[in-house]
């Protein structure tokens, strides 16, 4: 086999990209016989920038690691700071954090389901996904004033309270999704072509999910019953009775393929809707933040000494932050950012093996990678040793063409 490694010059720090990742696929005909992945690193720059900022400033930096799960990133960061400085968040603040985390999960999963349908050429479902995500973004805007980076989290709690008006728009949204989101549930339960494209494609076995330290829906689809909301409840989740969603509980077995990853995310949307309702029903009275004065918070943080670890179940899997504060230094001494894709991308080469090139976009998508930059892949032909650069568009065409071949004339 004549696999040849190529260098694709992206990153490590590039303002337009969040997590640059390149894949090299070795092909035998249409079949993928080898795969290598190389991530770049926009957040290395962010880690250096954090050393020049105090924890309050880093919130707004951390929020910009990702657009879709910005609140997950800052919650993990804030929990690490609160662990290092031993700060206690009031119960109402914890509940509101959980609420925003679930809003974000719903947004992320709906967006993902739509994009997954797009990559197999199911354009009507893609349009539907785009339409549906508007509702949760509108709700986030009604609560925070922003649709993407909400600016709502702070050290020791949150900055805005849930008013009766916000409560009403969230409940409206829950009702809307309970009736409308069933379109995606029907895709995974009834559509034979969607099933044909996703079943037994991009398989990650249970054992490989453990060995490769897979996370979130990617691990759960392989049958691993893990969910930090259940195994290590943070914020309000200890009161909410969350059960990890694994395919074996719904369809009898977990095959760890793209279909199962789709199924897990669809079911988790319903789970999130139930959780939001529970949060709103049980929202405790009281303060939303442990100290309103940012000046007082900063002087307390300046005295703090220690390392803290924050870990939460983000839409794509667990999101880790480790923060070190040194007494007398108002800035972070260092921090470590670990987004879920950092861990899940390790599983890609295993998922690719034995699949067709046309399935590659779907497989890449199936872990819900947090990258907007999968612009090109280098395809090496194992038979002739030749190379060809495939753009994302060409790969998508291949994938969509494969679906068309499955459809009745």
């Amino acid at each position: 086999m004549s696999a040849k490694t190529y260098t694709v010059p992206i990153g490590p720090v590039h303002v337009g990209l969040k997590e640059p990742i390149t894949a090299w696929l070795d092909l035998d005909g249409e079949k993928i016989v080898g795969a290598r992945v190389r991530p770049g690193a926009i957040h290395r720059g962010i880690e250096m920038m954090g050393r020049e900022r105090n924890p309050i400033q880093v919130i707004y930096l951390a929020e910009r690691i990702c657009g879709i799960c910005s609140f997950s990133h800052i919650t993990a960061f804030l929990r690490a700071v609160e662990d290092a400085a031993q700060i206690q968040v009031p119960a109402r603040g914890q509940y509101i954090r959980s609420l925003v985390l679930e809003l974000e999960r719903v947004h992320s999963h709906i967006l993902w389901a739509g994009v997954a349908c797009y990559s197999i050429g199911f354009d009507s479902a893609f349009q539907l996904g785009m339409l549906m995500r508007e509702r949760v973004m509108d709700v986030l805007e009604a609560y925070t004033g922003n649709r993407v980076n909400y600016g709502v989290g702070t050290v020791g709690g949150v900055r805005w309270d849930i008013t009766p008006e916000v409560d009403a728009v969230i409940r409206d949204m829950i009702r809307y999704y309970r009736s409308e989101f069933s379109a995606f549930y029907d895709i995974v339960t009834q559509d034979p072509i969607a099933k044909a494209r996703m079943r037994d494609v991009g398989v990650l076995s249970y054992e490989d999910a453990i060995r490769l330290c897979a996370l979130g829906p990617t691990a759960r689809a392989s049958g691993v019953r893990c969910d930090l909301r259940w195994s290590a409840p943070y914020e309000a989740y200890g009161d909410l009775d969350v059960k990890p969603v694994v395919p074996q509980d719904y369809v009898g077995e977990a095959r760890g393929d793209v279909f199962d990853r789709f199924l897990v995310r669809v079911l988790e949307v319903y789970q999130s809707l139930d959780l939001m309702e529970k949060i709103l029903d049980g929202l405790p009275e009281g303060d939303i933040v442990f100290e309103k004065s940012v000046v007082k918070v900063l002087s307390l943080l300046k005295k703090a000494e220690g390392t803290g670890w924050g870990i939460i179940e983000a839409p794509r899997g667990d999101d880790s932050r480790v923060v070190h504060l040194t007494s007398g230094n108002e800035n972070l001494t260092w921090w470590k950012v670990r987004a879920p894709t950092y861990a899940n991308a390790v599983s890609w080469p295993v998922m690719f093996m034995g699949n067709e090139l046309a399935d590659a976009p779907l497989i890449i998508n199936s872990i819900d990678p947090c990258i907007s930059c999968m612009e090109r892949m280098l395809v090496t032909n194992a038979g002739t040793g030749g190379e060809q650069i495939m753009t994302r568009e060409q790969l998508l065409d291949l994938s969509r063409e494969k679906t068309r071949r499955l459809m009745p004339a």
Partner: protein
Amino acid sequence: MMNRSIDYVKEPLSSEAVIARLEERLPDIRIQRRDRVGGRDNSVQYVDLWIQVEKGRFLQTIEELFRLDFPHFHVMSGDDVGDDVLLNYHFSLFRVSEHGKRLGVSVCVLVPKSDLHMPSLFDRIPGIEYSEREMREMLGVEFEGLPMKGFIFLPENWDENVKPWRRDKDGLNPDMMRDLS
């Protein structure tokens, strides 16, 4: 039930039992226990352990973790702390067991700058690959047994001798940094 060559433990030990067992087997380690509270009544939701261990005891500590459960690896953090490079390995035990029973375990090791070598855990936990490569290129720690030596996050044409997270002469020169703010 499939015959599984590798699996997680379903019946967790309490944090007290884990601490007692580790202290018995590894007399010179130091363990700090942190109760993470939350929820309406501010009760303990889960526990994190921070373990400080000598470099010479590191592998034995990891072996002990493996006797408890397959340690799920999250990430490695680290810093240049003067004469040493600090490495923190962040794991979970009992990740797939019961409500609130996952145990966060951070194993902290000081690696002297005079001998920046650590044994690689790649053969035991393949998911550690990215973190070991990251610490190698950012802090200059060599992991013995790690097959992949290429840069993972730094660009290919990066000067191998410059370790961006180091705070000494091997770190970034101020004129190599563009204004990040």
